[in-house]
């Protein structure tokens, strides 16, 4: 079947999609967007987290046909051209990337948290990231990265307000 969707701001049409296929498979295997990772295929690990109509979801649990006419934003859509998004910069600076497999899902989930909450508490960060597994178990650095990105975002906002 044919699926028409918007991915990272671009209209895309994908043909030959199997009816039982996941959005994750379409993104990775048919559209050449391997950022979202395929790991558990049962919504347990969060490695395939993408935005669907503005909400973070596990792409492995979205049937491809359900994404027809919807907006998808993947980890590839977070950076502004060649410039990393601040959450990505924070992950690099804090050493929150080890093997890197869980990183794309965590970035999307952390991006959503900071966009929604601004300066989240530790409890809010832990809750937001509860569905993203890191088997290198580098969670402390990941928490550091989210705190850093949130603090910088808060500081940037205050700075803007001061100038205005």
């Amino acid at each position, binding site marked *: *079947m044919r699926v028409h969707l918007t991915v990272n701001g671009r209209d895309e049409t994908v043909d030959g999609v*199997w*009816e*039982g296929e*996941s959005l994750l498979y379409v993104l990775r295997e048919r559209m050449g967007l391997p950022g979202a990772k395929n790991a558990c*295929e*049962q*919504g*347990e690990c*969060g490695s395939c*987290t993408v935005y669907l109509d503005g*909400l*973070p*979801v*596990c792409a*492995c*649990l*979205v*049937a491809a*046909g*359900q994404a*027809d*006419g919807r907006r998808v934003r993947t980890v590839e859509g977070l950076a502004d051209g060649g410039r990393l998004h601040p959450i990505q910069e924070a992950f690099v600076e804090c050493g929150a990337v080890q093997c890197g497999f869980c990183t794309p899902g965590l970035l999307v*989930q952390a991006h959503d948290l900071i966009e929604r909450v601004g300066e989240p508490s530790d409890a809010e960060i832990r*809750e*937001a990231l*509860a*569905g*993203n597994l890191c088997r290198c178990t580098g969670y402390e650095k990941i928490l550091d990265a989210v705190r850093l990105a949130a603090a910088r975002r808060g500081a940037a906002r205050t700075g803007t307000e001061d100038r205005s």
Partner: protein
Amino acid sequence: MDFLRPATWAEALAAKAADPTAVPIQGGTDVMVEINFDVRRPPALLDLTAIGELGDWELTADGLLRVGAGVPYARIITELGDRLPGLAQASRTVGSPQIRNRGTVGGNLGAASPAGDAHPPLLACDAVIEAESAARGTRMIPATGFYLGVKRNALEPDELIRAVHLRPATGPQYFSKVGTRNAMVIAVCSFALALHPGERRLGAAVGSAAPTPLRARAAEEFAAREFDWSGATALDPALLARFGELAAEAASPIDDVRGTAAYRRHAIAVLARRTLTWAWNDYRGKAAA
């Protein structure tokens, strides 16, 4: 495999009537797992996510909340947490934020897993499931008659779940669940409690400790008969203990990968005492105020 994507509820009912083997899919958090693992290859998927009205909830003329089958757990928590606290607490324990953005009570009912987190609060709150078919129209099924066996419910092959009807809370409600961690856990066992002070009774239900979720009837009758519903007194520890025993006796658990039958029976008694203590403290606080 066919992928059916009706744009309206009438089209969905017609599609289900034309092909009763079509499997409804909403958030995909159960159906897609089965397809990804090749456990199930339905001849057709019936995607209900394009039908906007399934994602709505409303207060009906008779004062009930009619929650569309497509309202995700995340919105039950944020939009209905004040009026449906028991269901909202259960919703908070479902999966992860990503799962709660997609998973729905309608899907929980369709899957009818004995471990589904929404079931105990639905039972404790006297929820009624609104099912519909093109041939016979709407049928209201009390939650108590909905769960027939492991992953079996009372739906006819041509029926779809339209909504769940619940009375907004009239007293304290609690849900508690045992698992190996706070997130991403299928219940080892769970328990829901809803006090209905106006009727001087409570609803109590057990999850993941029998082939179906079920009401703890003997515990409910004991509470209605023995508790001081004026709310003037603290619960006698003997009453609390007996309530826990009766709740545990309602369960008929099995040994499986998540826990043993003996552990589940023990834990149900603990959860029953714990949720009742929380609820009764709230109730006494209100009664005294």
